[in-house]
C-alpha cells in the first residue's frame, strides 16, 4: 500500500530564519516551485474540461445581488489545486481548461473540440438540453460528463445518459429535503405559489411529489402573475394574493428569482416562506462549518477573496470526484478512472458528515442537503427518523425502481 517516497526538502540550505520568512510570505509560490524530486514529464496528466453557459437573466434583476463572475470556476480552480497537492505524491497532475460560452451561443463546438483534443472528464454548467446534446455528441467515446447545475429530474429519469453523472442534486432531492424538515416541524399544510417561468412549473411538480411522498398537504396552488419586478408593489399585492386560505407554510416556486423574495413579511397571515426563496435547500452555504467544512470555506476565501457559493461547491466536488478516482486507481487512464467512479467503492469526503456516493441507477450523487436562510444554516436533511433500507440519503430524490432511467 505504500507509495514511493519522494524527497521533500523545500528549503534545504537556506538559513532557518529566512526560510521561515520566505515561507510565511509566499510559501505556495516558493515551496511549490522548489519541490524537487519529480520531473514534469514523469507526471501523468489528467485534463478536465469545464464549460459554462450562463442561463438567461431577466433584465429587471440587473440591479439586484449578482452572482460573482467566476462563480463555479473559482470552486473548480481550488479543487484542481487540492488534487494537485495530492497528485504530487502520486505523480499525477491535473489541468483545468475553461470555456465560457455566451448565453446566446452554441456550446457544442467547444465541447467537441475538447473531446477531440483528448479530454475525457467534463464539468458542465449548462442547461439540460445542452447537456443532453453533449452526452449524445460524445457517443461511445470515453467521456464522463459531470453535471453541476442542471437540476431537472428528467436527467435522472427518462432522459438519463450512461455518460452523465450528476453532482448537483435534482429538484426532487431539494424539495424532498425541505419536505422532510417541514413534516418533522409539523408544518404540513402548504400554500404553493408558482411563478410564470417553465422552470417554476418543474419546481412546483417536484414540490407536489415531495408532499405526496412525506404526507404533507398542498391546500391550494396559486400562480403569481403580477409581472416583473414586484419591489414597489408587493406590499399592496401580496396580502391580497395570499388571503382566504388556511395554511402553515408558503412554498414558493420562483427559480429565476423575480418575485419570491417579496413574499416574505407581506403575506396576509403571518406565515413563513420556503422553497426557492426563504428557507431553501442547497448544497452549500457561507455559514456551513460542520464536518470540517470550515477548512474548505477558509481555503476558498483565502484563494478567491470571496465566500464560496453552492455552485462553487458543486464544481469543487465534481473535480474532487475525478481526483479521487485518479488517486484510488493510481491511474490517469480515463477508462479505469470512470470504472472506479461508477463502482461501489467510490466515495467522496464532501464536508457533509457522510460519504458521498453515486446511485448506480442514474449516477446521481447521494448527499445530505443543507436547509438555509440568507445568513444562517437552519438544518440538514435527511432528518432523523426518515429511514431507508439502503441509505438514509436515498430518502431524497428518485429511488431505484421509480427513476425510470434506462441508460442509453
Amino acid at each position, binding site marked *: *500500500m*505504500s*507509495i*514511493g*517516497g*519522494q*524527497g*521533500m*526538502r*523545500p*528549503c534545504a540550505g537556506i538559513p*532557518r530564519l529566512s*526560510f*521561515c520568512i520566505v*515561507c510565511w510570505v509566499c*510559501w505556495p509560490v516558493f*515551496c*511549490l516551485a522548489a*519541490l524537487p524530486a519529480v520531473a514534469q514529464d514523469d507526471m501523468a496528466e489528467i485534463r478536465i474540461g469545464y464549460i459554462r453557459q450562463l442561463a438567461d437573466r431577466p433584465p429587471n434583476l440587473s440591479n439586484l445581488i449578482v452572482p460573482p463572475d467566476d462563480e463555479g470556476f473559482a470552486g473548480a480552480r481550488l479543487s484542481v489545486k*487540492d488534487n494537485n*497537492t*495530492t497528485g504530487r*505524491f502520486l505523480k499525477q497532475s491535473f489541468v483545468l481548461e475553461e470555456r465560457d460560452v455566451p448565453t446566446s451561443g452554441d456550446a457544442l463546438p467547444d465541447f467537441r473540440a475538447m473531446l477531440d483534443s483528448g479530454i475525457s472528464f467534463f464539468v458542465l454548467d449548462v442547461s439540460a438540453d445542452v447537456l443532453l446534446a453533449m452526452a449524445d455528441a460524445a457517443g461511445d467515446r470515453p467521456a464522463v460528463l459531470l453535471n453541476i447545475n442542471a437540476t431537472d429530474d428528467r436527467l435522472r429519469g427518462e432522459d438519463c445518459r450512461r455518460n452523465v453523472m450528476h453532482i448537483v442534486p435534482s429538484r426532487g432531492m431539494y424539495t424532498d429535503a425541505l419536505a422532510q424538515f417541514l413534516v418533522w416541524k409539523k408544518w404540513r399544510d402548504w400554500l404553493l405559489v408558482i411563478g410564470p417561468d417553465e422552470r417554476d412549473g418543474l419546481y412546483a411538480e417536484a414540490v407536489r411529489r415531495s408532499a405526496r411522498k412525506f404526507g404533507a398537504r398542498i391546500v391550494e396552488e396559486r400562480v403569481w402573475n403580477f409581472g416583473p419586478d414586484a419591489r414597489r408593489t408587493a406590499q399592496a399585492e401580496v396580502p391580497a394574493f395570499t388571503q382566504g386560505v388556511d395554511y402553515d407554510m408558503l412554498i414558493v416556486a420562483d427559480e429565476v428569482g423575480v418575485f419570491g423574495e417579496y413574499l416574505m413579511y407581506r403575506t396576509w397571515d403571518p406565515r413563513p416562506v420556503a422553497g426557492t426563496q426563504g428557507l431553501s435547500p442547497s448544497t452549500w452555504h457561507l455559514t456551513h462549518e460542520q464536518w*470540517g467544512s470550515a*477548512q474548505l470555506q*477558509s*481555503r476558498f476565501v*483565502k484563494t478567491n477573496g470571496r465566500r464560496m457559493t453552492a455552485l462553487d461547491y458543486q464544481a469543487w466536488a465534481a473535480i*474532487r470526484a475525478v481526483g479521487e478516482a485518479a*488517486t*484510488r486507481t493510481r491511474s490517469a487512464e480515463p477508462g479505469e478512472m470512470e470504472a472506479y467512479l461508477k463502482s461501489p467503492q467510490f*466515495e*467522496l*469526503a464532501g464536508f457533509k*458528515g*457522510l*460519504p458521498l456516493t453515486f446511485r448506480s441507477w442514474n449516477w446521481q450523487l447521494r448527499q445530505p442537503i443543507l436547509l438555509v436562510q440568507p445568513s444562517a444554516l437552519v438544518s440538514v436533511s435527511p432528518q432523523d427518523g426518515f429511514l431507508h433500507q439502503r*441509505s*438514509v440519503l436515498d430518502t431524497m430524490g428518485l429511488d431505484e425502481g421509480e427513476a425510470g432511467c434506462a441508460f442509453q
Partner: protein
Amino acid sequence: MRTATVAAILLAGVLAGSGPAQAYKVFVSNEKDNTVTIIDSETLEAEKTFNVGQRPRGIAITHDGEWLLVCASDDDTVQVFDVKTRQLIKTLPSGPDPEQFVLHPSGNPLYIANEDDNLVTVVDIEANKVLAEVPVGVEPEGMGISPDGKVLVNTSETTNMAHFIDTGSYELIDNVLVDSRPRFAEFTADGSQLWVSSEIGGTVVVIDPATREIIKKFTFEVPGVTKEALQPVGIRVTRDGSTAFVALGPANRVVAIDAKALEIKKYLLVGQRVWQLAFTPDENYLFSTNGVSNDVSVIDVADLKVIKSIRTGRFPWGVVVAPE
C-alpha cells in the same frame, strides 16, 4: 504486574470506598466556548473552567508536567499555560489554523498540523521558534510520532494519506493511502504498529511502520446504528499494546479492540459525537470527549465499562491528563 496493580487498586477502592488512590487533573478543550475544563480524576467532578484562545482543539501537556499546550485554531496560535496556575505564559508560532499536534518523545520540539496551509510546522517550544515547515497533503490533521522519535506521521484529510516524515531531515519517507478523511495517527508504545482512523471511510487501519504495509483494516458494526454513522476518530492504545480504543464519532460509541489478536472486543456507549480519548497515566481510566452532548465519558479500562459522564463546556474536543 498489571493484574497486580489492578487488583491493588480494586482492593484500595473497596477499602476506601472510593476510586483509585491516584488523582490526576484532566484537561478538556471546549471548542465552542473558548474554555478548558479541569476534571479531578479521583472525584470525577469538573472542578474549574478557565478561558483560553478562540476555538481550542488539540491539547497536550509537556513531559515535565509544567505546561499545558492548547491549539487556539481561530487565533492561529498555540497557547502555553502554566498547568498549576492556569496563567498564559506565552504563545508559540504555530502557523495558521493549528488543530492537532504531537510532542517529540524527548519533550521538544512540537509538531503541529496546519489545516489551512497543507503544512506541518515544527516548533522549538523552549526557544519559541519555527524549525521547519514540511509540505504535506490537503488538510493535515492527525499527528503521531514513533516512540524513538525518528518518524513523524501526519494524516491529510482531503488527500487521504498517512505521510511518514523523517524527523531528522524533514523529508517525506513514504505516503500510505488510506480511506476517506483520515483523522488520527497513533503509534503503539513499542513502535511496532501505527493505527490510523478514517472518519468518512469508516475504517481503522493498522500499519506496519517498518514496511508501511497495511496489516489490518477494521470496519465496525453496531446494531441499530447506520453504517455511515460509524466514523472513527480518536485512538489510544494501552502501553502494553493489549487494547486499542477508538472513538466512533456520531455512533456515540468507543470500541475496544484486542490489539494483539486484532479483533474487536466491545462497543461502549458514551455521549454524542465522541472524538478524542485520553488515558490517566495509570491507565485505569479513559476519558472521551463527547462534542454534541457537552460532556466527557469515563471508561473503566480494566472492566471495559462506562462509569460516569461529566459535564464540560460547549463542544468538548480534546482531552489530556496531567501527571500529578
